[in-house]
């Protein structure tokens, strides 16, 4: 948060608001967003059910597609962009995402370690019988 950032405050816009666009342009924005979202969704469902893709790569592909689709929603529906008028909105989003990443990633990491060190019962039977 340097001095450079808040000079934009002057033409700051609310999250969800767009800068001056005509109604037609705005509708086109939603249409494009819907099209992209449907395309990405279809790809996700297709990949999950197909044998054409190398199986172990499916989870990664699904996660990448989900992130891409979230991005599409953010840009076309919520109008969050990297523009200077959006700095504050993006910073808040970045902080939120950092926390989400830390909580989910940290939890999964910690819990996998704990489970590994404290084998739940089925693995324990295998080890000791």
């Amino acid at each position, binding site marked *: 948060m340097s001095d450079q950032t808040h000079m934009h405050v002057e033409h700051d816009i609310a999250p969800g608001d767009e800068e001056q666009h005509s109604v037609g342009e705005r509708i086109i924005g939603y249409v494009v967003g819907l099209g992209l979202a449907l395309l990405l969704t279809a790809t996700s469902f297709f990949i999950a059910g197909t044998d054409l893709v190398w199986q172990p790569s499916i989870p990664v592909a699904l996660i990448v597609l989900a992130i891409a689709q979230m991005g599409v929603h953010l840009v076309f529906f919520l109008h969050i962009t990297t523009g200077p008028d959006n700095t504050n909105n993006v910073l808040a989003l970045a902080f939120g995402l950092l926390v989400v990443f830390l909580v989910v990633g940290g939890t999964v990491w910690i819990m996998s370690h704990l489970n590994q*060190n*404290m*084998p*739940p*019962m*089925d693995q*324990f*039977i295998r080890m*000791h*019988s």
Partner: protein
Amino acid sequence: MNLLDPQGPVAAANSTILVDSVFIMLAIVVPTIFAILAFAFWFRASNTKARFQPGFVYSGRVEMVVWAIPALTVILLGGVAWIGSHQLDPAAPVPGTGSPVRIQAVSLDWKWLFIYPDQRIATVNTLTVPAGAELNFQLTSSSVMNTFFIPQLGSMIYTMNGMVTRLNLRADNEGKLKGMSAHFSGDGFPDMMFDVNVISPLSFPDWVATTAKTDAVLNEESYKKLMQQGIEKGKPTYRLEDPRLFNLIATQHIPPGPGPELMSDAGRPHSGGHDAR
């Protein structure tokens, strides 16, 4: 139970790290406290000899030092923490003389059960171990969480139902120590103190032999009776019927211990801890 009077290598290492860390930090903490008091005293408004410097609000040199001192301290302590965590991991082996003793500890509502699967005996609220041998603990809980802790032997560890934690310790000197639960577990929690008898490796087999002659038998049935909520004032010992009892507990083949009996639907249930007094 003084943490600074360790009776085994794990506790000795823990407490050395503890003391070292304190001294590392004292090296900067003491001067800082002194500086706070000295500055506060010297720059008091009534002291005309002190020079008023309202413009002294930034100094690159001071800022450097100010960030560097805590950072360096933390790097040093971080190193200690890294090495210490690895060397003193509760599951890391602690080599000792003679063959290691396997002990399976189960925290019950509100007592400790120690199973010696190889010796086919079990004890409640008393842990008897030979001096100098490696002690391999496997720990679980019959119901709620507890923490197994013998202060003078070092590292504590949680016990949880359906899970097995591991801890290796060694007691170096013969004598009587105390252990406890260090995680609150309900009304009978303060009575989860247990005795630790460290005896000579030579007399350990004798103790095992004597204990094995006990009439009381520990099997699924008597275990289920034992795990009811309540406080055990005596120190019963058992012959172990099936050395796999611990596995049955840990894998929940024996279901978790029951909670308090409900006297009425409303607000305040009565627990075993209440009656045991």
